[in-house]
């Protein structure tokens, strides 16, 4: 998994690319979020459009990331969910937890 970050109007937009699966991306996601939070970022928007594969471990890390940011008083939201990831969040009812956006500017404005 690769992650690239940029800041727009105080919102840290982190674009994730590749696999978020057990042993290949799940721990990297944890590290990316941890680093962002430790650097004082508390408005985080994860752009998921380039995520090619995710499994239950990756889903678990998304949940853990949400908890990490929320516990620090911040907000974590999702942008551009691929269809299959969207379905995985729906069947586990996690779609009720995450705020999901399809438009970057609207997402940034929502923080």
């Amino acid at each position, binding site marked *: 998994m690769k992650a690239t970050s940029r800041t727009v109007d105080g919102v840290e937009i982190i674009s994730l690319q590749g696999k978020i699966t057990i042993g290949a991306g799940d721990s990297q996601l944890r590290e990316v979020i941890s680093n962002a939070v430790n650097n004082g970022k508390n408005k985080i928007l994860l752009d998921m459009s380039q995520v090619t594969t995710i499994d239950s471990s990756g889903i678990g890390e998304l949940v853990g990331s949400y908890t990490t940011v929320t516990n620090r008083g911040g907000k974590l939201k999702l942008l551009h969910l691929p269809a299959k990831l969207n379905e995985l969040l729906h069947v*586990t*009812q996690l779609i009720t937890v995450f705020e999901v956006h399809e438009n970057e500017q609207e997402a940034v404005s929502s923080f």
Partner: protein
Amino acid sequence: MERGDSERIEITISSRFENIELVQVIAEHLCENAGVDEDGSHWIGMAVREAVANAIKHGNKLDVKKKVHAQFDLHGLELVIRICDEGEGFDPSKVSDPLNPQNLMKTSGRGIFYMRTFMDEVHYTFEPGGGTSLVMTKNLAKGTGIASSNG
């Protein structure tokens, strides 16, 4: 491959996460060759991914000397997948329901749920000499999207 044919594919891997995709790809190709569409093949492949990941992590506890055996049997339109590890076994009934609101924010415990969502039947058996066998079945004629019943 024509529908109605029988096919058996077997593969044995060492307990490394990077081998999971090998087994997943076999499952997806087998499904596609049987006429299953891309999405349906993907979900079955994901069930296999979760099963193999559990076998490596919870069954064999990442011991690379221990193997995971995968067997795919396609009889007409019925796909039977068996994933066996060489570990000490575990009780799947102790895995909490991820849909329970109390468990919603847990970071683990969704693998078996996804298997049951994507496949028609999921059964565990425990071998007398150790090891867990997971058998998953899917009737490819019933459609292969996300199941409406999560069993």
